[in-house]
């Protein structure tokens, strides 16, 4: 059964269009991340689902009920806010009970749910404290607890990790993953952090420029980006795009780039539109620093970034085209070195003039 369904949602503020004709279906118990840069409309979409904004057009359905005409409190959704939005004058217990009291849940039932949530989130010792007396991580758990006790059909998380420091962010990521296993509801998380989306989500919805760019499981988004935006937004460092000419006929596209290198991709030739001009998409792992024997191209090193488990090399090809390559972890390269590169055509992506992506078949 579908959990959430968005049908043709449209929203503008004044004359500024924020969302254009967004449709989407979530499966039951699915964890979906809305990924996009700030201003992409992802938060607005979340707020429309929550009922904090009203869509200009379109419908929102949750488990076969149309919820967009309902006020936020009656939609069966719970939200964890970016800054937690805990009521500062209420204890943790009162924070969690507030929504249940408004919904006229019986007192002993409220008690039971709070006790359960507190146990699961390990916040039992905090129940009588106020938000001001807690750390950021504790507040985060309480915010999750407040959503949990409502036993919603859908959780909405608005940038849930953005206010935590790096160490806590990793820990909380693990906790969110565990939470997902425990709750019998779908989860939507809004984030601008692709690593968060990749690790947590069953499916990622990449949103940019008022509309959905691509929907799919994390590895599909990474391996088969639908367009240039997705290709460059997902993955770090960003994919290198190199202008290229279609070189010769064959089953697979063979492309020639500015410095003369010919790259034999595994992208079926007949999928491409009739044009000679494309862009070659190369992630660093598709461009390796090699000995001159196996090289396809030459380049000059501009910057070396040692990440520990691997080394990234920012270089320029003979025609001045920047390219990002990967070297082994103990790389001795330094700025100004002339290096030999091997471009792995099997891992390359092709983008047409409109930005649409084409990928190898299979994998």
């Amino acid at each position, binding site marked *: 059964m579908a959990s959430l369904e968005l049908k043709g949602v449209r929203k503008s503020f004044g004359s500024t269009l924020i969302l254009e004709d967004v449709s989407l279906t979530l499966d039951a118990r699915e964890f979906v991340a809305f990924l996009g840069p700030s201003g992409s409309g992802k938060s607005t979409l979340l707020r429309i689902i929550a*009922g*904090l*904004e*009203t869509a200009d057009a379109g419908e929102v359905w949750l488990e076969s009920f149309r919820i967009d005409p309902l*006020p*936020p409190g009656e939609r069966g959704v719970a939200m964890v806010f970016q800054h937690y939005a805990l009521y500062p004058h209420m204890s943790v217990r009162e924070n969690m009970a507030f929504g249940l009291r408004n919904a006229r849940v019986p007192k002993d039932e409220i008690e039971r749910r709070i006790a359960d949530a507190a146990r699961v989130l390990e916040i039992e010792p905090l129940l009588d404290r106020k938000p001001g007396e807690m750390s950021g991580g504790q507040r985060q758990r309480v915010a999750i607890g407040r959503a949990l006790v409502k036993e919603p059909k859908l959780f909405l998380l608005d940038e849930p990790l953005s206010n935590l420091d790096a160490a806590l962010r990793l820990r909380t990521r693990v906790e969110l993953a565990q939470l997902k296993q425990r709750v019998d509801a779908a989860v939507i998380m809004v984030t601008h952090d692709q690593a968060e989306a990749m690790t947590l989500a069953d499916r990622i919805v990449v949103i940019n420029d008022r509309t959905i760019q691509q929907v799919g499981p994390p590895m599909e988004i990474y391996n088969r980006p639908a367009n240039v935006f997705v290709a460059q937004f997902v993955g770090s460092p960003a994919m290198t795009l190199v202008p290229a000419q279609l070189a010769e006929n064959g089953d697979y596209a063979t492309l020639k780039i500015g410095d003369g290198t010919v790259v034999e991709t595994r992208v079926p030739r007949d999928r491409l539109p009739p044009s000679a001009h494309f862009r070659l998409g190369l992630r660093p792992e598709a461009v390796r620093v090699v000995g001159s024997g196996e090289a396809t191209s030459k380049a000059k090193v501009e910057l070396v970034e040692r990440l520990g488990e691997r080394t990234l090399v920012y270089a320029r090809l003979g025609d001045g085209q920047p390219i990002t390559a990967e070297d082994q972890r103990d790389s001795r390269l330094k700025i100004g070195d002339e290096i030999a590169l091997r471009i792995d055509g099997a891992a390359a992506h092709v983008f047409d003039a409109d930005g649409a992506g084409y990928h190898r078949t299979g994998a």
Partner: protein
Amino acid sequence: MTSARDWRGLLFVAPFLLLYSVILIFPLLRGVWLSFNQVDLFGDGHFVGLGNYARLLNDPIFGTSLINTFEVTLMIVPALTIIALGLAMALNRGSRNAAIFRGIFFSSAVLSVTIVTLIWRFVLAPDAGLLGELWKAFGWQPLPFLSDENLVLPALAITTIWWSVGFPMLLFLAGLQQIPGDMYEAAALDNASRWTTFSRITLPSLRRTVVLVVMLQTAAQLQLFGQSQLLTAGGPSGASRTAVLFLFETAFGRWELGYASAAAELLFLIILAVTITQYWATGRATAAQGGR
């Protein structure tokens, strides 16, 4: 918010707005209307156009009361501003002594005008007053502060300064707290003298507060009433009658409601004009300074 535009929101502001319309807006408009009519306690009014205003401009009593008002305002506002600024600078420190002094200088501000005048009547009175006793102790003739035409306005001014110094002092203290400490550190490193520090850092930083104090005090003193009514009843021979006292006597002594309304409107316009002029002038000065 879910509510695009919701009439129910009006319910929250309605109680205030209702009272506000009845008790302030309606009287404000009604006052303008009254000022164009001749109304007294008994008869129905009749429309006289600008007649009341013309009469006001030719009324020497009103003229004198306006001049008195301006004079006393000019005596009070600059002195009050300078004293309050000096006190604030001297007392802008964390010590316990400073806190006690702040308390002393603010204490009079919580008193009502009736208590203040009651106390000062027996400070100023030559026969039973503190100053009179002091003068006598030095073997001088006590000065008749409240019955001498030349002394009475200064006496009102001194009483008012004593009463009002606390509030502007607090405003200046708040302003001083806003000045970042590193500006003074930088000045100290540059070997700036006390005067340079004051004129180049403190005063420019307090510019907004000075403007606020002067504007608020001017508007308040142009409405000076209680001191004049209670200490001297406007005397001797009108030498301390202020504009609001004139209005009060005309309205609630002689019940010339239309005429008093015209005086009220005129005074309202004067206060508005003075305030706007001050605001405009300081705005221009700031712009000129910024343009250097």
